[in-house]
């Protein structure tokens, strides 16, 4: 065991650090540039920065050269990301494109399409989104209802998608739709990439319970998509979607703070019965629990990085991350508010410890337990794919889609 870089990795890290020092500002103890700006300004700056990175060869460094990457080992991309995290650079718009759409284009699109679409994606010139979930197809993605039918060289799409992050600023999107309802649900799906500026696409932001709007509803009314933008064979949409979702699960990041650190800080300044809450054993036990969870996830990631660094494929251990971190965020938030006792309901940042971070995350955290796979679906996945337990009894597997009970 050795937490140090190899000489080669250390050299690369030094190079990156130097380049970042020349090209960006170190992070300071204030909101990051992305949080200081509104989304529109943020997007402009983020596109610029992504282009600078790409020019220097640091964007998607592990992607093949012909796609605009450098064909270097994955660990170099990770080292770059680790170093970039110490700098205050504008980010946050390209995760879905680079994490999900790029890899799927690389696998299924023609060479010409790859040459056309992937380089601008890497350079931040074109933003991509993902159109899978529907109002009646959340955990059960394959139950989706959006229809498509062939019309000449085109397909015509009608229906509704939901939970599409970035739909309103995206140039392109990947989409799965149902071309045949008489086939079993997983067999009647076909996959496309689409131009988000196509006529017939209507985008509405969704207001979340915390008041923010990170997601959209997207409505399709006779939207025409050329057959050349089909990815995979007709009826092979589910396999393509599954490959994409696998990429999504790898891309899921850490939960945002507060975590045990913020609770410790709060508990040091809060009094309980006249003594600092940090001396209270019930508080200490909670901090220890969350520390163990946080470090467990951190070191689990280190195991994954080790595998990547050695050119191996990571094991299933990463699957536990979101199950743990989403609930932890909700519990930490609630606990932090409770430590503030009767005053814990106030959300005015100017009046509150940590600028009301605990209160904000109390409202935000329920979404983390749902987005990207609910707690329940993730436990199913761990049980079936990692532990090898048998699947659910399925009533919807071998019948025509149109015969599956929907309750309506």
């Amino acid at each position: 065991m050795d937490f140090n870089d190899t000489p080669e990795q250390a050299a690369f890290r030094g190079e990156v650090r130097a380049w970042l020092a020349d090209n960006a500002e170190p992070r300071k103890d204030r909101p990051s540039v992305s949080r200081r700006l509104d989304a529109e300004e943020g997007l402009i700056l983020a596109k610029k920065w992504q282009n600078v990175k790409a020019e220097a060869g640091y964007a998607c460094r592990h992607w093949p050269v012909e796609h605009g990457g450098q064909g270097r080992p994955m660990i170099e991309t990770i080292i770059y990301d680790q170093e970039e995290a110490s700098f205050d650079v504008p980010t946050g718009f390209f995760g879905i494109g680079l994490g999900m759409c790029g890899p799927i284009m690389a696998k299924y699109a023609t060479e010409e399409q790859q040459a056309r679409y992937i380089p601008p994606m890497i350079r931040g010139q074109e933003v991509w989104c993902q159109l899978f979930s529907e109002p009646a197809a959340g955990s059960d993605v394959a139950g989706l209802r959006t229809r498509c039918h062939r019309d000449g060289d085109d397909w015509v799409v009608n229906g509704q998608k939901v939970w599409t992050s970035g739909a309103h600023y995206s140039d392109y999107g990947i989409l799965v739709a149902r071309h045949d309802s008489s086939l079993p649900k997983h067999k009647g799906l076909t996959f496309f990439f689409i131009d988000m500026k196509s006529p017939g696409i209507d985008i509405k932001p969704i207001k979340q319970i915390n008041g923010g709007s990170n997601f959209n509803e997207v409505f399709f009314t006779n939207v025409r998509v050329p057959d050349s933008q089909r990815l995979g064979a007709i009826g092979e949409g589910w396999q393509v979607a599954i490959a994409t979702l696998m990429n999504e699960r790898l891309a899921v990041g850490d939960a945002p703070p507060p975590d045990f650190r913020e609770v410790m800080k709060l508990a040091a300044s809060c009094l309980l019965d006249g003594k600092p809450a940090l001396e209270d054993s019930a508080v200490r036990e909670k901090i220890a629990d969350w520390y163990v969870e946080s470090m467990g996830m951190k070191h689990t990631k280190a195991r994954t990085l080790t595998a990547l660094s050695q050119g191996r494929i990571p094991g299933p251990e990463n699957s536990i991350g979101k199950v743990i971190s989403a609930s932890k965020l909700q519990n930490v938030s609630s606990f932090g508010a409770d430590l503030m006792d009767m005053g814990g309901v106030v959300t005015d940042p100017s009046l509150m410890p940590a600028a009301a971070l605990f209160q904000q995350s109390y409202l935000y955290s329920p979404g983390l337990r749902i987005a990207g796979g609910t707690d329940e679906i993730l436990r199913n996945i761990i049980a079936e794919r990692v532990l090898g337990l048998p699947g659910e009894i399925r009533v919807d597997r071998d019948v025509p889609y149109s015969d599956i009970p929907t309750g309506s």
Partner: protein
Amino acid sequence: MNFDFSDAQKALKQQTRGFLRAACDTTVPRRVLENADEPYAGELWQQICANESLGIAIPEEYGGIGFGYLELCVVAEELGRAIAPVPFSSSVYLATEAVLLGGSEDQKQALLPKLAAGEAIGTFALSEGPGQATEANLQTTLKNGRLSGTKVPVPDGDVADFCVVVARDGNGASLAVVDLGADGVSREQVDTLDPSRSNARITFDGAEAELLGESGQGWQLKNRVFDRAAVLFAMEQLGGADACLEMAIGYAKGRYAFGRPIGSFQAIKHKLADMYIKNELARANCYYGAWALSTDAPELPVAAAAARVAAIQAFHFASKENIQTHGGIGFTWESDCHLYYRRAKLLALSIGSERVWKDRLVSGLQEEAA
């Protein structure tokens, strides 16, 4: 053995539920939540006044209808179920109880009839910001009948007519009544997790105030008020928790995934069974607390703490797992899930958090054992 509400009390409950179903469906708390200009639902409050609900537990000699606390508990449970956006808890559970317990005959004569009629809204101010308020760390002072200091959050403090304030004077903690329209009082709405119930930050700058109860006995008096209020808050929380369970059951039966209702999956079934279990534990403790409140039993401090703890736990769990049961739609503003999730936290922190009440509970058990 008759551990049940009477037929008349059950009828009152049904009647209150029917009234609130008509007068306060979830569009009402949502409207107040979304409009900063509407601190509470005025027309609903008028109807509640007209129903004489404010004076249920106030003796007739002071303008109330003198029913008793079991009747008040029944109404509280229904207000909680309806997540009613009105200053009922501040005016009835806190201000009225403080005056009943600590007020002089003159104060009772002056304040109770107005509270009973809804002519005045009262509230109670303890918290001075984030962190547990204790007798030792009170910053607000009462000197020569003048109050100075800042209280935040004060529930309904922006709309109340008067406030009972916990302050420090030469003898320790004391309670004082202050007219919130008086000179030396400034107040502003403060944002909270649950904007369907308004809260204020109130600054006293030498505002005239009148002692309520004995000087130096304010902390004990506050504890007695909070013991009584704890049962009533717990009844509201129980009602809210039941509403979440009903909502989750309804959704789980009607929402299909993988060709079957999601309520047929054990992960959902057992989640809702756990919700039911917590709600039943809360109900049993709440009803016992209601009995102890209504009879002013020596068991009240422990019974109130147990009701409060169980109800906090039940509403917290039910409101968050109701969102989870709904999945993505539960995280949207349009869904009603968040109305309960917000209210659960607001009520959980009113009159002190779970840990404060757990500590009181065990202290009470130690006293009983001693």
